[in-house]
């Protein structure tokens, strides 16, 4: 749990750095996100006049929920102590809870910006969530389980082979991850123009320690999705329980390498594509939904089912 907490800001810093280098800029140093968090934590909170208690507890709640979800994903070793607490469906639902509260907080201050952000965020979520669940169906049908550790173990073993369904599931999951993390082309994490923002508009009223918690939650979420994709589709070198220290060290190294690959690919993709109009997003996510569905359907023509 502590590992993800420590790594998450670094990952975001790394993505930003790569993006900056791709644009031939110097870019902020890698540890900038940590500095940002510390600075925000030290500042006072400026609360909108109309904000209620819900607005004040939401940052902690969102942070806690995403943290719990992130710590349920095997990073470098399967067989986490509490992995049976919640399966993949529950992880998706936990992320849904976080979004639910964040969207409510967006409407709390009583400004139009919060409303615009919340309503667009839920629109994106209504398509992203089913797409993600369909992807999970595909995986669960292959592995015969919705438990992440089991899925990862099945994917390590060579029984799975190349399957077109899994490829589609991967693409769908990546599309969902991009949308859920408010990355280009769905949303621009660095925008400062109110009308084009989705996620940022929703959290516009937050400041100080509250904003720090929300930013931290966003970093964690990015890490969560990359770990999830790595754990399912690149399960190599995941240490199985009881394999001893060398396997664990190898697992950690491999995990870090996977994160780096994910971050570089994300940065490349973001730099290469332009943000789309808000009402193009449903088509983008509709394609993810369709891929997820197609993946489930095509599963039935595979060998073992």
């Amino acid at each position, binding site marked *: 749990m502590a590992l993800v907490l420590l790594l998450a800001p670094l990952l975001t810093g790394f993505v930003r750095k790569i993006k900056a280098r791709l644009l031939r800029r110097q870019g902020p140093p890698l540890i900038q996100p940590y500095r940002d968090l510390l600075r925000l934590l030290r500042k006072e909170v400026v609360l909108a006049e109309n904000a209620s208690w819900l607005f004040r507890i939401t940052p902690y709640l969102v942070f806690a929920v995403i943290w719990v979800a992130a710590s349920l994903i095997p990073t470098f070793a399967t067989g986490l102590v509490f992995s049976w607490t919640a399966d993949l469906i529950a992880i998706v639902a936990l992320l849904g809870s976080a979004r639910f509260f964040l969207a409510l907080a967006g409407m709390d201050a009583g400004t139009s910006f919060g409303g615009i952000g919340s309503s667009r965020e839920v629109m994106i979520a209504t398509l992203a969530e089913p797409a993600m669940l369909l992807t999970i169906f595909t995986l669960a049908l292959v592995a015969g389980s919705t438990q992440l550790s089991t899925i990862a173990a099945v994917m390590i073993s060579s029984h799975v*082979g*190349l*399957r*077109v*369904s899994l*490829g*589609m599931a991967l693409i769908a999951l990546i599309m969902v991850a991009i949308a859920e993390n408010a990355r280009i082309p769905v949303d621009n994490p660095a925008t400062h123009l109110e009308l084009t923002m989705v996620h940022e508009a929703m959290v516009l009223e937050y400041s100080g320690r509250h904003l720090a918690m929300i930013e931290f939650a966003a970093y964690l979420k990015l890490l969560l999705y990359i770990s999830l994709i790595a754990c399912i589709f690149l399960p190599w070198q995941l240490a199985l329980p009881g394999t001893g220290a060398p396997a664990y060290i190898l697992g950690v190294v491999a995990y870090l390498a996977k994160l780096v690959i994910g971050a570089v690919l994300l940065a490349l993709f973001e730099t290469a594509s332009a943000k789309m109009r808000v009402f193009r997003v*449903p*088509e983008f996510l*509709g*394609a993810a939904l*369709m891929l997820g*569905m*197609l993946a489930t*359907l*095509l599963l*039935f*023509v*595979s*060998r073992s089912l």
Partner: protein
Amino acid sequence: MNGLTFDIAHLLAGGLVLVSFMMLYQDRLYSLLNMFALHSLVLTLSVAWQAYVQQAPHLYVTATIALVFKAIIIPVALHRMIRRLGIHREIETVVGIGPTMFAGMALVALSMVVMLRVTQAADPLAREDLAFALSVVLLGLLVMVTRRNAVSQIVGFMSLENGLVLAATGAKGMPLVVEISVAFSILIAFIVIGVFLFRIRERFDTVDVRALDDFKGKRRR
């Protein structure tokens, strides 16, 4: 047959279905053509792989035909045709992308059910090949139905034909002569349609097939 050969065949055939969906998703003529080229390329690979697996050299010929004609000559020719017609802007689809996608999903599900039920006893490779091939054929028809532009209708027709070729290679033992004749008939159909396109355009200033309907309507009255 070991696992890997099956997996690769499966991957390629599934890829073909996926490319068919991507064709449904496109709303520009050029990208539709590129998708079609990709479609044919995937078909080529799939056929070549089948040739290798089944050790049937005549399938290599089929693959070469697919590669040369469908993946290179026809797309290039259509590209030039579009440029000369000056219609490289958007395709007007009859229905929106969302419903089209849903219809496509339903068609794939239908073909899976039908094929898997009918061919219960057949060998797994042929089975899934047939299921995929039927999906590709149906999706090709869907492309034709949902587009108004004559060029995209041609593309839909050709992707349909790709599905037929996939079915033929999966089914083992379709003679080469039949395939070649199919390929040539397609080519001839292509030329005929191409000539028609220019005639249509000369007459109506558009390749929107609605113009033909209007024309028909006027005659009758």
